[in-house]
């Protein structure tokens, strides 16, 4: 790919935000100040679960090693995201849920800001880079949730960029090792999806080995990448649980009952609005392959094909696909646009895009972003600085979570006895909002395993033996969404009585 056109004499203005900075500021403010912040914490109840775990670790100055949040399964617990949870919990200790959103918004904004910067640095013009980043944002937005997985998205971007730079000879082996191995240590402690880094390195290693074999050239680069793979694999053991983390992740994917339960591990449902961005990205990719007809290296084929396959298996890989494929798309489209034999349209585009890129280079990145961060921190810290109510309040959606029911249970703890049966979606929320009670289930399916899951399904469906499962776990009360089928059974059952009901939740208690 050729370098972007040189400066055309645009005057530098550090305070005028560049396109990258505008992407950062728009995302950061949009996620922090609009209703998106509620969606980010309440699309599922994992943010609450992570906050609860993080707060526990901060309180006890220790990593969670025993689980005591569920009554159905206790025992040794492997925390896959302990550092991510501590970071999120620290921010929430300062600013409540707004702090939680602040961390998530910063990670998302930085991710797409960095992607834009990478595309520009790799020779893409500012217009094309912006359009492609917007498409990647649309695709990735289906998984913008305030959870430690956002660290994975950022780290994937950094790994992929460094591997591309190494492939082009822009970074030495030593620098690559020095950067990616420590980042792998960070990754394995921040989020359980650190394997993505290892998969990416493998793709580049096998891709360059195939190219070296095909062209009968030196194997130095593939050897370096395989060494890096070994090094990062070794580095991934630098976590509080060592090899057990790897074993747990492999177990999770091995157990179909467990991985099939988690919606985000399901194949993409193209009927949903959330998948329209991914479809748009696929359309851009398809049109590029058909019209531009780029020459793909073995690594490109592995990266696009491999991540395409992973996405079809699991919708949660869509943001990763977007982050690793967009730079390749940018390279192919830039080569196409810069082709000297192109039509007059392409010449006109080059001229116009060159001017835009020069203006963009003269604009600022750090000063406007720093100014926005300071302002946001001041807004969030208003109660600490000036007292009074916070300017921005963020909490779980009352229409989606049993907030009123939980308040009622805290006021009248005597209305229920024994253990709880809860809906899968509410597990993390109840662990956070009702810490004195233990939940039946939450989203950590890899922790409690298939037996608890099967029991949960028997009651959740409900099937014939639902009563024996509830007896097995000494369940004395249920808290479920109004339309849950078990509520109808309990309404008719003389051994259960209604103790709370509103538009969101119904609480039944066993009478005998």
């Amino acid at each position, binding site marked *: 790919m050729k370098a972007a056109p040189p400066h055309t004499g645009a005057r530098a203005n550090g305070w005028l935000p560049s396109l990258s900075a505008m992407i950062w500021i728009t995302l950061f403010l949009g996620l922090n100040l609009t209703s998106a912040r509620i969606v980010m914490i309440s699309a599922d109840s994992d943010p609450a679960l992570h906050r609860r775990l993080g707060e526990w670790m901060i309180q006890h100055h220790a990593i969670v090693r025993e689980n005591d949040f569920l009554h159905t399964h206790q025992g040794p617990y492997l925390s896959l995201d302990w550092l991510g949870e501590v970071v999120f919990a620290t921010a929430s200790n300062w600013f409540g849920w707004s702090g939680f959103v602040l961390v998530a918004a910063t990670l998302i904004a930085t991710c797409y800001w960095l992607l834009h910067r990478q595309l520009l640095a790799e020779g893409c013009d500012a217009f094309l880079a912006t359009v492609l980043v917007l498409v990647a944002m649309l695709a990735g937005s289906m998984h913008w949730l305030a959870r430690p997985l956002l660290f994975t998205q950022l780290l994937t971007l950094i790994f992929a960029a460094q591997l591309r730079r190494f492939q082009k000879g822009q970074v030495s082996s030593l620098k690559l090792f020095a950067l990616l191995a420590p980042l792998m240590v960070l990754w394995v402690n921040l989020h359980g999806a650190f394997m993505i880094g290892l998969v990416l390195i493998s793709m580049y290693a096998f891709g360059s080995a195939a190219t070296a074999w095909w062209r009968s050239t030196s194997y130095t680069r593939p050897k370096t990448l395989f060494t890096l793979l070994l090094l990062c694999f070794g580095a991934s053991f630098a976590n509080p649980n060592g090899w057990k983390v790897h074993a747990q992740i492999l177990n999770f994917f091995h157990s179909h009952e467990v991985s099939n339960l988690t919606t985000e591990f399901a194949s993409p449902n193209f009927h949903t609005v959330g998948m329209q961005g991914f479809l748009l990205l696929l359309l851009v990719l398809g049109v590029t392959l058909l019209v531009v007809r780029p020459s793909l290296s073995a690594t490109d*084929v592995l990266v696009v094909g491999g991540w395409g396959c992973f996405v079809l298996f699991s919708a949660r890989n869509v943001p990763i696909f977007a982050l690793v494929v967009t730079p390749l798309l940018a390279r192919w489209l830039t080569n196409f646009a810069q082709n000297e034999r192109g039509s007059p349209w392409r010449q006109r585009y080059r001229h116009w895009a060159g001017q835009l890129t020069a203006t963009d280079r003269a604009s600022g990145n750090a000063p406007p972003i720093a100014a926005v961060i300071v302002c946001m921190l001041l807004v969030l810290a208003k109660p600490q600085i000036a007292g009074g109510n916070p300017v921005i309040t963020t909490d779980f959606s009352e229409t989606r979570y049993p907030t009123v029911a939980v308040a009622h249970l805290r006021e009248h703890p005597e209305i229920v006895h024994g253990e709880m049966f809860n809906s899968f979606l509410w597990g993390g929320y109840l662990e956070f909002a009702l810490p004195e009670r233990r939940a039946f289930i939450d989203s950590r399916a890899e922790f409690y395993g298939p037996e608890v899951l099967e029991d949960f399904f028997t009651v959740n*469906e409900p099937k014939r033996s639902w009563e024996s499962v509830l007896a097995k776990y000494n369940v004395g009360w249920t808290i479920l969404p109004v*339309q849950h*089928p078990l509520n109808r*059974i309990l309404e008719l059952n003389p051994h259960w009585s209604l103790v709370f009901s509103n538009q969101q939740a119904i609480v039944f208690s066993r009478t005998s």
Partner: protein
Amino acid sequence: MPSLTQWLWLMILLILLAQPWRTMMVASDGDPCLHWRVGEYMLETRHIIRADVFSHTRYGQPIVTKEWLSELIFALAGRRAGLYGLVVVATLLIATTFAMLHRQLLRETGNHVVAIFVVLLAVWAAWTHWLARPHAFSFLLAALWCDALRRFERDASGRRLGVVLGVLTVLWVNLHSGYLAGFITLGVYWLGTAIELIRGRSDRNRWLAAQQKLRVLTGVVVLCALVSLLNPNGYRLHLLNFQFLRSDYLANWLAEYASSNFHEIDSRGFLVWLAFTFLTLALVRPRLSPTNGLMLIVWTYLALYTRRNIPLLAIFVSPILATALADASPAWVRRLSDRLGETDEVARGGLLVGMAAVVAIALWPRPTEMPAMKWPLDAVKYIQQHPDQFQGNMFNQYIWGGYLLHALPEHRVFVDGRTDFYGESLIRQYDDTSALRTNWMQALDEYHVSWTLLPTEHRLNLALALLPNWQCVYTNEVATIFRKQP
């Protein structure tokens, strides 16, 4: 010796006639029985069905028969050989579709290796939706439709295109509602030609050729639209289809309209097909015409959106990918193809294959039944043995509806696979009751339901067991019957 095409046809036929495929083709859902029953009714009354007689929820309401002709064909086969007859019809249609596709690929690529490779991938991708239902006619018609359009691309013979597509449209609108796939494809060809027209402005000959093609295609679109009204319901057929497609609720509710679940083994063929498409584009880098490029994008999107479109994707896109692959095939593949071609040229096995097929169809052990592990065969027997106990209206499992129409013709069902006929409001009512939502009793009261026939593990049984005026009168591992006390 038979040719490769004849081998392919025979192999598909024999595999589908064998177990477990034979049973899967009729017992994957209740629709094969439903279509047989509707066809049987039309044979008995010697009229096309105009009003519902099978359900108590929509009894007497006007019905738009989308598949009357194929239902008659299936019913005739069913009369002759029971469920096995349905399997034979579907098997012949599917085997013929892919044999024709193979001939088409051979004709277009001249490469025997590529043709058989691509058609086998197409078979693998498409097999997820091989059921003994009227949509099997759509496969064959799609292959013929695609062949006619690709011939037109090569020789620009407008008259032949008009005649072939006109006849196919008349057949298609009477055989299956999948005729919309033909119109989508025709629209893509029209759009692709329009793009060629715009791109060819600098080259007068190219521009004139594109203009002529566009004129022909416009005429064919109009002709097909007009002849599509030659069905018992005229324009109402189109209205019903559009209403159904506009309902997001129904599209999300019906399992076969869902996107593929790639965790299932059934979707592996489609996954391999997608990988094959990507590798062909990435490595072969074919120079496709706008029409072929659009066909690839549109049908891949439709197959990703709804898995029931996967067979149509394989049929419409195979020639595009096969041509690209043949152009780029290395010398050893061409040599192998020539060798296969030599054998194929002297192949005269048509009679042998025909005889083998007749022998297989006629002598194959026929018993084809709905499996008792999944379908309420014993419960149906119980109902038939105790007719006095089951006087009022039934509430049944959706997927069992078609089977019950066929097995219990003396009773009217609550719902069956004719989702578009029942409409969104009734399906929602059914779903509310079935999912035990707060208004679950409403449908039972409104439709005066006095007995239910549901899978034993169904949650509604648990609720009915707690009601004093409902009593379980029959239960086994598969089905449970509850009856309301008078």
